[in-house]
């Protein structure tokens, strides 16, 4: 998950830059310190965009194999502490698919399926919860 940080940070930065300057100035002119303007005024205005960035980053890192070969080093067994090499799904899929044994290749397909479903459900639940969140707001509007 640490691999996600730069992507999320960049995305957040770009989105915050899109907020028009007069909104930032309005916050400062209210006598709100700069960091509070960002945290409590700019971020709520772009919350839904930030969720999208987060989702895209999760999807991206879940499929990112190459850096994991060097960082988590790949381990097929249970781990006792976090400093040991650790198993990751993308690396496992890669290893299994080139193994040549039919059973392992099948497992590679299963692993790929797990990855795809994982990403699918994360997106699915975010969309659903955003949908109900927005619906809730619309209802309140007309009460």
């Amino acid at each position, binding site marked *: 998950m640490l691999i996600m940080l730069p992507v999320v940070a960049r995305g957040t930065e770009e989105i915050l830059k899109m907020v*028009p300057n*007069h*909104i930032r*100035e*309005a*916050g*400062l*002119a*209210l*006598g*709100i*310190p700069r960091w*509070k303007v960002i945290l*409590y*005024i700019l971020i*709520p*205005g*772009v*919350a839904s965009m930030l969720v999208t960035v987060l989702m895209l980053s999760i999807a991206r890192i879940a499929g990112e194999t190459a850096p994991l070969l060097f960082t988590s080093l790949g381990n097929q067994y249970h781990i006792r502490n976090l400093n040991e090499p650790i198993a990751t799904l993308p690396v496992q899929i890669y290893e299994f698919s080139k193994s040549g044994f039919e059973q392992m290749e099948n497992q590679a397909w299963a692993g790929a399926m797990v990855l795809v479903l994982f990403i699918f459900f994360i997106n699915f639940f975010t969309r659903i919860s955003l949908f109900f969140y927005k619906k809730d707001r619309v209802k*309140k*509007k007309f009460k």
Partner: protein
Amino acid sequence: MEKLLVKVQNLSAGFFSTIVLKEINLEIPAHKVVALIGPSGCGKSTFLRCLNRMHEEVPGAEVKGQILLEDQNIYDKFIDPVLVRRKVGMVFQKPNPFPGLSIFDNVAVGLKLMGVKKKVLYERVETSLKQAALWDEVKDILKRQGTSLSGGQQQRLCIARALAINPSVVLMDEPTSALDPISTSRIENLIRRLKEQVTVIIVTHNMQQASRISDKTAFLLSGELVEYEKTSKIFTNPSERKTEAYITGRFG
């Protein structure tokens, strides 16, 4: 004697050593409306933004001289601009409610972040919205987004937001230039009433507006203060040729 709230002394300001304001001296009495007029680019916005230390938020901004607010120089080294801005509120040309925040939160957020208790919050929001002549229109829809209001309502919301933190001066930079005539006259009426609470310094391009709502008028021309007088005198019998030329529309 009227009480002087703001004293501007030898104020010069600019960007990257281009001088925009030249040695401005002027005194602003408490509980009055002061209008600032002058052609585009003469430095009106820059002057306003010096008064709440927003000028320095722009890259390359420079300021010299001093501005006393209740006899305290707001440009003293140990003064925190954040605290100056709580005393001197600001309303911008374009209505700019905070997106993603409700009508209530737009007004409450300044107080909330200052640590004001929830109990007091509702009362203060109601008072501010009433002062901004918006309460009756929004009291049943406080949870709606601030950005869902009409332009004129948004501008009054911004006025309420500025008033909520209890400033002693409110700066307004052409607050009605983006609004229709009905919204404009509503805002003019509320500015006249605001004098009881605060001092208003308003930039306007509309001479009728200046004469309708202000007690004193300052005329700026290429960064210099040409004339600063009672509004009635400026508009009927200005001392300076340039002032007369400007208000009769011969230039600018």
